[in-house]
């Protein structure tokens, strides 16, 4: 699978390797091609993942899980370092609510070790989890998760 970035000219997603947007022909900026948002830890609920990425997108914080983010080899680490402190002062009810609701749910570390075991298969699983964002896309029938989104919006 390819990694896509947003063309700032026509708002279409294009492959990171593209020098020019295939839709509008405008060169894809080097900064756009280099940008890599932080990756959320495995095993988060939909609400927590939503809060995580909302927080990243708004520059508030990136620790919706209440723990550290997964290691990345890029700009994500800068966000990791301030995650918990930032949440302690902003977006508190959002993250607290997500954490409280998830208390007792499966320990994320279980999935982390599992996924470490399977190596390359992570890419397949990522397609449905957080490789590109926010956990499972909502099935057509379902319910908007109840919390985790009240204080941080994108």
């Amino acid at each position, binding site marked *: *699978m*390819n*990694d*896509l*970035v*947003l063309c700032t000219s026509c*708002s*279409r*997603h294009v492959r990171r390797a593209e020098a020019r947007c295939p839709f509008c022909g405008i060169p894809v900026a080097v900064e756009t091609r280099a940008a890599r*948002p*932080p*990756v*959320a830890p495995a*095993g*988060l*609920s*939909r*609400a927590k993942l*939503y809060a995580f*990425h909302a927080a990243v997108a708004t520059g508030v914080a990136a620790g919706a899980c209440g723990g550290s983010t997964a290691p990345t080899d890029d700009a994500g680490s800068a966000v990791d370092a301030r995650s918990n402190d930032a949440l302690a002062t902003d977006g508190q009810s959002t993250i607290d609510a997500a954490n409280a*609701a*998830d208390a*007792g*749910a*499966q320990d994320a570390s*279980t*999935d982390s070790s*599992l*996924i470490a*075991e*399977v*190596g390359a*298969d*992570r890419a*397949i*699983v990522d*397609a*449905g*989890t957080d*490789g*590109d*964002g*926010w*956990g*499972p*896309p*909502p*099935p*057509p*029938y*379902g*319910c*908007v*998760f*109840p*919390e985790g*989104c*009240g204080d941080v*919006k*994108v």
Partner: protein
Amino acid sequence: MLPAMDPRDPLSPVERTAVLRAPRPNRGLPMLTPSAGQDRRPLATETRAVDRAARPSYAVWELTLACDLACRHCGSRAGRARPDELTIEEALDLVRQMRDLGVQEVALIGGEAYLHDGWTEVVREIRRCGMQSTLVTGGRGMTAERARDAAQGGVQSVAVSIDGVEETHDRLRALPGSHTAAVAALRNCREAGLPIAVNTQVNRLSARDLPDVLDLLLREGAHGWQLQLTVPVGRAADEPEVILQPYDLLDLFPVLARLKARCDEARVTMLAGNNVGYFGPYEHVLRSYCRSGYRRSCSAGLTTLGIESNGDVKGCPSLPTDAWVGGNIRQHSLRDIWERSAPLRHTRDRTRGELWGYCAECYYGDECRAGCTWMTTSLFGRPGNNPYCHHRALEMDRRGKRERVELASPAPGSPFDHARWDLVVEDAAARSQ
């Protein structure tokens, strides 16, 4: 710059009047027979690494097929309970199996979940197991008492289906007064202290009403809004004139983007369901909460789990029963079905080679994989080609073409059944007529 929000009605005034007045198709409730003993493909003898890595974080569970509505677009043709629905003991055991498999959130649907005798016990067990509990309802019987029961049981959010203004909603729900009842349900839940949300089906009748639905949910204090295209499955397949045509997406998506902006301003979580896509110029608006502003493909069997009320397990609650049930929990454990059944492995194993038609050559094929498996199999009987795609509609339009689906043979009349559709490519000139 987002476009102005002035939805174009896909129906002309004459067409709208005709569809509103059309009598419901003359089809009874499905005659159901116990299915749990049906032969299904045997489970694989071994699990693979990818099967152990994939874990369902989100389960959507049809607790009963019994319903107090008989909506004209209901995919499961709900009404009567299935003859072999899980007992309360079996249901509680299934909750614990979900927990053990890693499920973090369980959405109860129906039918009407509250018509299941043990629904509050199931909710309590979900919460006791540390999972999140939500409920989806048509709202007709969500009385103040039931709302209090839900709150006391531990339900954390209730989504009420509202499919347009009163005239539209009552026509789709086939019951005068159902819109009033749905709004009352929202209020009953809110007064019981439950966070409230709204689910909306988008089709040729309701598309025009979406701004009005948003106004309503803002007035009522909803925290979330989930939208999904009406898929021609179950009863919805019986009324083709209600289903959006692929080219209708050209007008719909700018409206959705504007609605998303309004929701963001109002701090309402708007989620576009997985059949609303893919990769058009508003993708980053509709999926602004995603890491890179886009979603990849179907999550059935990757992170999503669907369960029918008799214990049949699918990768997504909406997938057609015939080809997508991996097994029944009366015969196998949930973990074994999840890890070793072919239907639930499908998304883990799919490659670009599965794509056909336009999707086989699409720029986004590797990421999108034709999007919603429910939509594609409901149209053509197999995944891999999805005309309900904004990017595709734009490309067709750029070439002076448009796509239209045409009923070829009707659905047989069972829950989650589907018709067969032909795909017609034609000149787009007719669009402005």
